[in-house]
């Protein structure tokens, strides 16, 4: 930790003692705390790893050595060589190329699921938290969704609507929504009786502005954290569904599908499962480390201990 960061932290502690700042979530403390938490070596490593994987996904066509779905029966189940850096699978497809392209699918599923669940959850959670009449209706529906195991619900949805990238993302997103709704609702319920919200009502602030200016900003920090966890769990669910053979269509090279197809020849060539598995594990681990760090940085109860 650099010296000036340290100094500014103590300056903050000093000033908070002087003015007797209570539990109020001030702007500066999380920001400085953010720099400190995100500067820790494991977090930096996670950030670097994620950046690398994102770059791989973006520049997949440039990095790949061939076509991920081109079949070459003459080169089936080959070990790593200069022609096929990570070997080939049972159809003679280049593993390295498939894994590179697979990162696109995995990240896309994670990003899609986390963004959609956060946006929908924010909308429904805000409505449930503010309009007391709709609260029990929305929350009972959410309880219903939560009562069904996520992967089971996703499998049912994919079976009903047919497997495609869109339906898989939708199927993974829906089970994630209730948790986001609950989170947002609890935040909105917590701030709706804050004096500054009541003061805004007394000032004649129209309802949409009241929600957007005074209530929704409080949900941003917890939503960022929740979003990262949805990201990671969506990627895992997609891989799990692929592995069970109920996920994306087999021609799409996702990490889950690659591992599913490798299962048969696992004894012969462990690499078929291992390489994709390592990529998946590292990505999920990095996202989780980052999510934990963000939670620590944005959680006001932790910054108070500072």
């Amino acid at each position, binding site marked *: 930790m650099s010296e000036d960061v*340290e*100094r500014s932290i*103590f300056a903050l*502690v*000093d000033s908070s*003692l*002087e*003015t*007797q*700042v*209570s539990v*109020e*979530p*001030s*702007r*500066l403390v999380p920001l400085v705390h953010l720099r400190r938490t995100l500067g820790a070596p494991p977090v930096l490593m996670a950030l670097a790893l994620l950046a690398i994987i994102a770059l791989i996904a973006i520049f997949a066509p440039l990095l790949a050595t061939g076509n991920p779905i081109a079949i070459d029966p003459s080169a089936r189940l080959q070990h790593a060589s200069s022609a096929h850096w990570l070997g080939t699978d049972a159809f003679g497809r280049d593993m390295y190329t498939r894994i590179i392209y697979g990162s696109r699918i995995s990240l896309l599923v994670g990003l899609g699921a986390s963004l959609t669940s956060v946006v929908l959850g924010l909308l429904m959670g805000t409505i449930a938290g503010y309009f007391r009449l709709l609260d029990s209706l929305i929350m009972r529906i959410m309880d219903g969704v939560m009562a069904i195991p996520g992967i089971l619900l996703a499998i049912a949805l994919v079976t009903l609507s047919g497997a495609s990238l869109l339906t898989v993302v939708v199927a993974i997103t829906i089970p994630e929504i209730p948790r986001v709704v609950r989170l947002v609702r609890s935040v909105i319920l917590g701030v709706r009786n*804050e*004096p*500054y919200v*009541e*003061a*805004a*009502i*007394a*000032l*004649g*602030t*129209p309802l949409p*502005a009241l929600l957007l*200016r*005074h209530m929704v*900003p*409080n949900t941003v920090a917890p939503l960022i954290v929740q979003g990262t966890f949805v990201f990671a769990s969506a990627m895992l669910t997609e891989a799990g569904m692929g592995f069970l053979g109920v996920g994306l269509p087999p021609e799409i090279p996702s990490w889950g599908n690659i591992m599913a197809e490798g299962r048969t020849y696992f004894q012969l060539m462990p690499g078929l499962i291992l390489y994709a598995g390592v990529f998946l594990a590292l990505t999920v681990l990095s996202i989780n480390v980052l999510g934990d760090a963000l939670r620590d940085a944005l959680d006001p109860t932790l910054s108070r201990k500072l």
Partner: protein
Amino acid sequence: MSFAVLQVEDLSVSLTGSPALRKVVDGVSFEVRMGETVCLVGESGSGKSVTALSVMGLLSRTGLATSEGRVLVDNENVLEASERRVRELRATRMAMVFQEPMTALNPVQSVGRQIDEVLRVHSKLNGVERRERVLAMLDSVHLANVTKLYDTYPHELSGGQRQRIVISMALILEPRLLIADEPTTALDVTTQNQILLLIRELQEKQNTAVLLITHDFGVVAEVAKRIVVMRNGRVVEIGERAEILTRPRESYTRLLVSSVPSLIPKQRARVSGETILDVRGLAKTYVERRLFGGGRIVTAAEDVNLTVRRGEIVGIVGESGSGKSTVARCIVRLIDPTAGVVSIRGEDIARVARRPLRRLRQHFQIVFQDPYRSLNPRRTVGDSIVEGLINFGMARSEAMVRGSELLRTVGLDSDVMGRYPHQFSGGQRQRICIARALALEPDLLIADEAVSALDVSVQAQVLKLLEDIRAVTGVGVLFITHDLRVAAQICDTIVVMQNGCIVESGVAATVLTAPQHDYTRLLIDAAPGRNWDFQNFKPIESTASIAAR
């Protein structure tokens, strides 16, 4: 001279790990003798609580550490004693009573067991003897029905009862030193008086040395033998009570004492402006729903009638639960009243529909108690102040100009518009809240305990600001407070509430000097420091002399 039970010598406390070693307490020395009450007085951040915690050896949990000095309890240095020895000392030699009795007690254990625990750990008595001892102690703090009380849980008791439990826990081993950190601040004024009397009674019985920490000079005037005035971690002045209250040497002490509101009503001209708020028969009831059986009806306010004239300051005074805040919130329609009429500008605010209500809101504004929560921490001061103006259609640039004028009106620099609330002190934030409320040029300003969370010197400034604003703008103010002394300083008319009903109302001077209702008399008698005229540094000879003024 009697024996000094507590001697604090040149005590300094600083932040652990701080490179600059900022001192929170700096070179504090004082002593407390047997059977004597010493009051440690100071505004928030003066280091008075930290001093108390270091005496108790409780600092290590706070990120602070004593860096210099000695704390002698019965000639034994607490700062050098082992953790084990300090624990022993804490129960047998010194004990502490905290501000909030609810959080000081364990919610999942009966109060009897909690007091019993002290004896279990620190004495060799058997179960029967311990129980007898606990019951005797509960009896001596004047709690009724002690055998039944033994098995109750903290949430079943009132605030005053809880504080009595905490006091019996502290005093059951007859410690030689009792430290009470704002023991009555969370309590109603009538309860406060009883607790102070109780502490004094037990002190005389056990000859305990008492170190009482408080921000309230009224309390000090009631109980102190000697006074230690602290500011920014240093001792400003130490002296006998009469000395400090009548002839303070230091200018800070003088400022502090003269800021204390006294019960003497100021002489005021009668306000005869038009009526801007007329409340008739206002009532608010809540129905407690239960799973089985009918609901229980809770009456928060009933048949409340009051008027506010232009330029008048009307005070609603009452203890917690009297319904005064309910009335305020009904008037600004933050909650819907059950019955009654609230007329402002000929419109019945209690009945008007949502949409037209929003238009009408510019005529009445409210300022809340807690300055730390009344401003959105994510928005700049400027954005907060101009919010109302923009809601009512003013262009942003024009609103910003108006906003900086308002800031000057409330005594702040107009260049602070771009700063965030956390950069301001409590008093400054309350000024910002007042500026925000005034932006819409309301006819009526409701101040709901608006100065209760502020230090006395800041409180005095904000009260003066409200008076000035009233004089300049002619705004009518409904001033809600639990503190009769503050009401005496600022109100033209006083309305006294108890259990949701108005028991007495009238011109401030009349209500305070010739109260008609028993409850009003009770409130006046319980007001701490009612016998002191703090502004003029002298005691009031008798209550008759108030009437003579």
